[in-house]
């Protein structure tokens, strides 16, 4: 493999960061909307937050924080050409990401069971502020959940590429960029925890 191949790892990371800042602005807009609505309906948001299961929210935070750690450790392992270890770290990340989604689905199922889902008849009888709270809750955690699914898909491909030596100690920019995406998903959740689950 001595032929010249054009590579610009910094350019690739810059491109990824430019994409990530559009994601930050996307969620940032929703966060700004949330803060205005919470300012307008403080009591309703307090009451809405009480309906959520804070324990599950905190457990999911620990799950995502740990999955972020294992991604960054997989990069360290690849830099040191420790392929098996890198695969173990990535596998752990995938397992933790799936755990997050399973916990999330139990939580949403419980909400649906209590008549709390977008456009539900019961939700329509609640005060406007609480309808806004649950509207934001489903929009923001739903959009975040979609990002978790995308991140897990990307990281599954990365695991396959590490296994097939397409990602190696001298060439791991794809793993780095997928890791950046996963960390951003983690950062968004860091904000969602106190805004929704600890709001009561």
């Amino acid at each position: 493999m001595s032929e010249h191949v054009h590579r610009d790892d910094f350019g690739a990371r810059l491109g990824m960061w430019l994409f990530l800042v559009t994601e930050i602005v996307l969620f940032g807009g929703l966060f700004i909307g949330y803060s205005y609505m919470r300012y307008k309906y403080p009591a309703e948001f307090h009451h809405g937050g009480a309906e959520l299961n804070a324990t599950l929210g905190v457990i999911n935070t620990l799950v995502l924080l740990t999955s972020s750690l294992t991604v960054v450790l997989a990069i360290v392992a690849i830099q040191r050409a420790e392929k098996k270890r890198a695969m173990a770290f990535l596998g752990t990340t995938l397992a933790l990401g799936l755990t997050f989604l399973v916990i999330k689905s139990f939580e949403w199922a419980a909400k649906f069971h209590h008549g709390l889902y977008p456009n539900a008849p019961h939700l329509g009888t609640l005060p406007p502020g609480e309808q806004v709270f649950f509207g934001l809750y489903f929009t923001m955690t739903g959009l975040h959940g979609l990002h978790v699914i995308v991140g897990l898909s990307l990281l599954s491909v990365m695991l396959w590429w590490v296994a097939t030596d397409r990602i190696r100690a001298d060439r791991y920019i794809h793993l780095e960029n997928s890791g950046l995406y996963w960390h951003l998903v983690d950062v968004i959740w860091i904000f969602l925890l106190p805004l929704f689950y600890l709001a009561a």
Partner: protein
Amino acid sequence: MSEHAEHSLEHANHPGYGTFIKVWVALLILTGALVGVSHLGQTYAVWGLLTLTPLKAGLVFYFFMHLKYEGPLLKIVVLVTLGTLLIFFALLFSDVAFH
């Protein structure tokens, strides 16, 4: 000699497992603190939200997302974005204040 210098430079650019595990422990402690202050009452909860949450996000950006090891350009890209969001936030609430 130069090979050794190059090697140690390479090593300095790539932090080891320990650094990230320490950051993870700090993130867990901050999460515990955030949950703790949220039980102390509304004022403490809001202050916890406004201080501990950005601190946690900052640790992830700086260490896990490797911004610490990047040049100024990527840092500026992120800061300009966060600054823009802050401006929008300030504009919205300055409008709300005069209604």
